[in-house]
């Protein structure tokens, strides 16, 4: 279990320190002769010295120092570190840290040193609530917001207190009763990031999509929802009844490798019927997360051409082709072509967008605002090199790409989202539903 949680700024100064268990305080006691007061802070110092100020950049998110494990995530210049002496489930700790970031972002926006310093009372209050003796508790933003507010101490009446207690300890801890909206509305976002590694010859070396279904619900009462998508298993199950439907929709269905759900989803129902039914929390939440590896639509194809002309010159030509319906528009396209470390000058010509040599990043960055499907564009560059006495050959790092497309590269489609509220008198038809697909690039690289 988590023994303590610390938040540092980039200098390694501790902004937030919350210790849940005593065992993490004493581990460095045997080695150094510290007074007892500084002992308490020794794990704090250990992390600063060994990770934040480490000579080599620490790349592993888990660090073991003096038999104590430090799990950290970094948000801009802020380090969040969970500390434990026990053999804890690392995935759980990271899940908690991400959740913690989400909660903080929901309360005060961007996680920055300034914001953390301004909200430190709130953060301690949150930490008291979402971790108990190191065990993660309810971290649902919507639920938390009902009793942890930024308005300072609000004295609650006995009634309210008992209501909060019954809600937090009840069966549906993530939604309170008596919510009312004039307009029942819900938004569904399918957010995917597509990852690719391609050989220079155009062979896919590895590709996968990791996606999230994020939902924003403004519904009255305690509605029961049912979510349907083109999951292969569900389609096939239904297909058993009607054979012709299988052949029609078989191509449309996708194979989901693995997925996780928000706590509101009834897992027993998913296990038995593979149907996703739930009572949603109020406001924004992440309904599910999934990963697919088969039949991925690759939105862009990068064709690199690198020619070394003698020891002092390099010619690079890169073609990108968009590979989706011409009616759709990709946005925020950025191609990053790495240059050798001894580059002394670069000339670039591109057909579309803007390209620039960024010396600080050792790369040529080519930006295109918009690009329709089934199009093609090209950039060519001449790189001048300074002869060095280093005999090392240039390693030719891969060309990477960033973009945003308005469809799901995995092929996922939302088939339906039904809402039932038996107690109040609105039906599925009265709810206004919005669905949006966004496909982004994850690590999208082509070797050259």
């Amino acid at each position: 279990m988590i023994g303590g949680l610390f938040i540092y700024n980039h200098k390694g100064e501790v902004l937030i320190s919350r210790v849940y268990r005593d065992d993490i305080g004493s581990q460095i006691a045997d080695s150094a002769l510290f007074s007892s007061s500084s002992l308490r802070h020794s794990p704090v110092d250990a992390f600063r010295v060994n990770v934040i100020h480490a000579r080599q950049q620490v790349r592993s998110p888990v660090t073991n120092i003096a038999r104590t494990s430090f799990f950290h995530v970094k948000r801009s210049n802020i380090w969040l570190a969970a500390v434990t002496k026990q053999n804890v489930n690392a995935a759980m700790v990271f899940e908690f840290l991400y959740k913690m970031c989400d909660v903080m972002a929901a309360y005060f926006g961007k996680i920055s040193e300034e914001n953390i310093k301004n909200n430190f009372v709130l953060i301690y209050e949150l930490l008291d609530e979402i971790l108990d003796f190191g065990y993660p508790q309810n971290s649902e933003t919507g639920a938390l917001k009902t009793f942890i507010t930024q308005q300072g101490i609000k004295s609650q009446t006995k009634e309210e207190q008992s209501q909060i207690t019954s809600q937090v300890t009840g069966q549906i801890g993530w939604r309170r009763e008596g919510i009312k909206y004039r307009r029942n509305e819900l938004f569904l976002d399918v957010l995917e990031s597509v990852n690719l590694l391609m050989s220079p010859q155009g062979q896919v070396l590895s590709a996968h999509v990791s996606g999230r279904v994020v939902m924003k619900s403004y519904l009255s009462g305690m509605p029961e929802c049912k979510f349907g998508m083109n999951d292969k298993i569900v389609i096939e199950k239904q297909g058993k009844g009607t054979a012709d439907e299988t052949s029609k929709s078989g191509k449309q269905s996708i194979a989901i490798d693995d997925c996780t759900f928000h706590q509101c989803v009834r897992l027993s129902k998913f296990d038995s019927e593979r149907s996703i039914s739930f009572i949603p929390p109020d406001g924004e939440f992440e309904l599910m997360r999934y990963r697919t590896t088969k039949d991925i639509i690759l939105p862009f194809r990068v064709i690199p051409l690198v020619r070394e002309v003698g020891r002092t010159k390099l010619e690079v030509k890169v073609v990108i082709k968009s590979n989706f319906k011409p009616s759709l528009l990709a946005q925020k396209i950025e191609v990053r072509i790495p240059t050798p470390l001894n580059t002394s000058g670069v000339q670039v010509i591109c057909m579309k967008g803007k390209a620039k040599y960024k010396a600080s990043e050792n790369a040529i960055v080519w930006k295109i605002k918009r690009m329709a499907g089934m199009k093609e564009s090209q950039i060519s560059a001449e790189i001048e090199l300074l002869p060095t006495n280093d005999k090392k050959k240039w390693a030719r790092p891969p060309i990477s790409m960033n973009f945003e497309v308005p469809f799901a590269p995995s092929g996922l489609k939302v088939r339906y989202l039904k809402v039932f509220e038996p107690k109040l008198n609105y039906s599925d038809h009265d709810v206004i539903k919005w669905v949006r697909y966004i496909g982004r690039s994850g690590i999208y690289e082509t070797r050259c």
Partner: protein
Amino acid sequence: NKNSCVEAGIRGICVGRCKSKEAEIKRINKELANIRSKFKGDKALDGYSKKKYVCKLLFIFLLGHDIDFGHMEAVNLLSSNRYTEKQIGYLFISVLVNSNSELIRLINNAIKNDLASRNPTFMGLALHCIANVGSREMAEAFAGEVPKILVAGDTMDSVKQSAALCLLRLYRTSPDLVPMGDWTSRVVHLLNDQHLGVVTAATSLITTLAQKNPEEFKTSVSLAVSRLSRIVTSASTDLQDYTYYFVPAPWLSVKLLRLLQCYPPPEDPAVRGRLTECLETILNKAQEPPKSKKVQHSNAKNAVLFEAISLIIHHDSEPNLLVRACNQLGQFLQHRETNLRYLALESMCTLASSEFSHEAVKTHIDTVINALKTERDVSVRQRAVDLLYAMCDRSNAQQIVAEMLSYLETADYSIREEIVLKVAILAEKYAVDYAWYVDTILNLIRIAGDYVSEEVWYRVIQIVINRDDVQGYAAKTVFEALQAPACHENLVKVGGYILGEFGNLIAGDPRSSPLVQFNLLHSKFHLCSVPTRALLLSTYIKFVNLFPEVKPTIQDVLRGDSQLRNADVELQQRAVEYLRLSTVASTDILATVLEEMPPFPERESSILAKLKKKKGPSTVTDLEDTKRERSVDVNGGPEPAPASASSTPSPSADLLGLGAAPAAPTGPPPSSGGGLLVDVFSDSASAAAPLAPGSEDNFRAFPKHPRISAGGSEFVCKNNGVLFENQLLQIGLKSEFRQNLGRMFIFYGNKTSTQFLNFTPTPVPRCGLDSLTRTHLNLQTKPVDPTVDGGAQVQQVVNIECVSDFTEAPVLNIQFRYGGTFQNVSVQLPITLNKFFQPTEMSSQDFFQRWKQLSNPQQEVQNIFKAKHPMDTEITKAKIIGFGSALLEEVDPNPANFVGAGIIHTKTSQTGCLLRLEPNLQAQMYRLTLRTSKETVSQRLCELLSQQF
């Protein structure tokens, strides 16, 4: 000026303002790209901007980023005439240019120009660069030049100073490259130079040179003495710049005193008198009230004083001075300053070994004991322990040992083991009666059992066995000590051993009847580790012999499942064998087999060896030697080992007496096919090793000076094993041979916890006297990684090609730096001619036909020799196969004889070999006959094979 330039670099880069590491890297990438484009640009850069960019590159490098360009620009700066540009150029080169760069010629040229320039600042820069790089290449290029500058009459003082230090640096890195010539005599006269800076630098140089070539610099003694006396007698204001807090030239004084420590006391009475006068003056000055309250004043004064005391100790000839030094140190023992107390204790340690001052040191015993008890710093307490050990003699041994014992209970963990060893040695060396000795050691085990190493209790047992007058007392004491409910395992070991040997001496007392003794020991049995239990089993079987009445009880114990079916092989085997022995053998046989141990041969105390090992070879050893010489006549007990002990290993004494029994080859006889089973002997030897305390032979092999250890003849018949082992290093071998080619994997294991640096093993083929012109063996290796981490192992592959037959095995020279010292190890590599043996099968008829063909008297070699090992047929067979030849069965009419055949492959020729080995069991003799087509081959093979039986 330099600062402004570096500042410009920083201002240009503004790294200080970057918020995060990422931002810094971005900023630096951008700057590097800018500098690259500037260097690449078409128009030539002017000197200032070149300097600026080179300086920026240097700064970026120092921030920890890689720089792989700009070297050429830096070299260009060297030829500039402006000081600042030249300086940045030199700075860049001494930091960034490595020795195998192509630019090194250009750089050397620039340095040569500057050295010849007669401009003192340029010369200074060049000399600093040479010294800072200090590589072998630099030494090769300039080792001839620098001495000339040093002794040239018209060189400026500051340049002379730099040149002296530069030469010192070159001499330290590659002493072989610095030529000794007529300049040496002129360097000595620099001690008379007007400029004290030059004198200081020259003294450092001369001290280092004199350590290697004392004869050449002998004249420096009188000069140093006169210089020293001028400094010492000068008033504090005389030396102006070189007076440091009212102490005249303390650094120079210390260096001069160090220089004098390279030589014995001067023979010329005038010089000697003057030196004594100096030393007296220094000692007198220590008594004067301090001229300043500043700590620097007393530090400088004491530095000179301590160096003077070391010189007095080094000369060890003036009783008067020695006693004065001792008294002075005595005052420091109670000084407020911890460092002073430490240094005083340390110096006194060496004083205690001088015969003149030993008594004077002894007067401080109470202060030292007090220091041991009250001192807060553990390192000071450690020195106090050392001093007590050094000042101990017969008169105060009882007191000191008692003090050390009482201190042991509260001692710091890090020094406990050493105290234990020291107590053990002192108790043994100055024992008036051995009862006291036994008491002390048992006390020691009781107080600090964990820190009592094996050697200590081995030694107790050796002594108890060798002196019959203490045996009864020892048995009684250990019996009483064992009564304690919780006793340390070492005590159980001692108790088990002593009761097993001498339990009968106290068996008359009904309180310690045999059964009581047995039950007492057996009550501890289950709490002990395996080796101790094995020892106790041996004790039990000895009891069977000593007290027939407990035989059934002991047999029951041995028969128990926990012994007879113990998971540990050693315990199980002992239980089975002892049980059989006790049931089968008659009392007579039992009495013979389990007779009381014979006295041990006297030799160097194993504890002493252990202590030496712990302390490193230098310090304790000489102290020990001198002390021992004094104590020989006083104490009959532990005679010092004869000096030749290291060359003739004393017979390994087997304390348990039983080690030999299981060591005999009781395993199944090796199947005739398996050549690998040849090493049964070495296996059994290693199995017996944990029982045999004689393992200190290992310690003795600790080579202080390179000595070729005889690459064992045990490798003749096998290809894998441990070739060499000492305290630092273990060398293992794995080899394979095919026809005239072979490959050997050498594994170097670092046994210590610290790194070996500059680790260079080089196998060198040795040429026999018969042919200096050509090599018989070709060896090819790749260099190994020069650093070997503590506990790590590195591997080296040696490819071997045998060109023609040879007799001398190649030698493996290993050099490395461990701690501060260079270690040199040379081992013979076990590559012998028979490794290139290919077995040939042939029928009886063929064999005798060929045998007759080779009847020429030069082709036959015969050797008749006595068997060194038991004559076992199977082992002999295995050895012949391991030797490399085929073993031909049913060839010889006499089945007891062994016959073999094979071909020796070399690159130039192939030699057929036939061999015949005729054992004579009655006479324990062998006759070995070899017939080959080549005389030298016959000779060599016969030699090799004869050693094996």
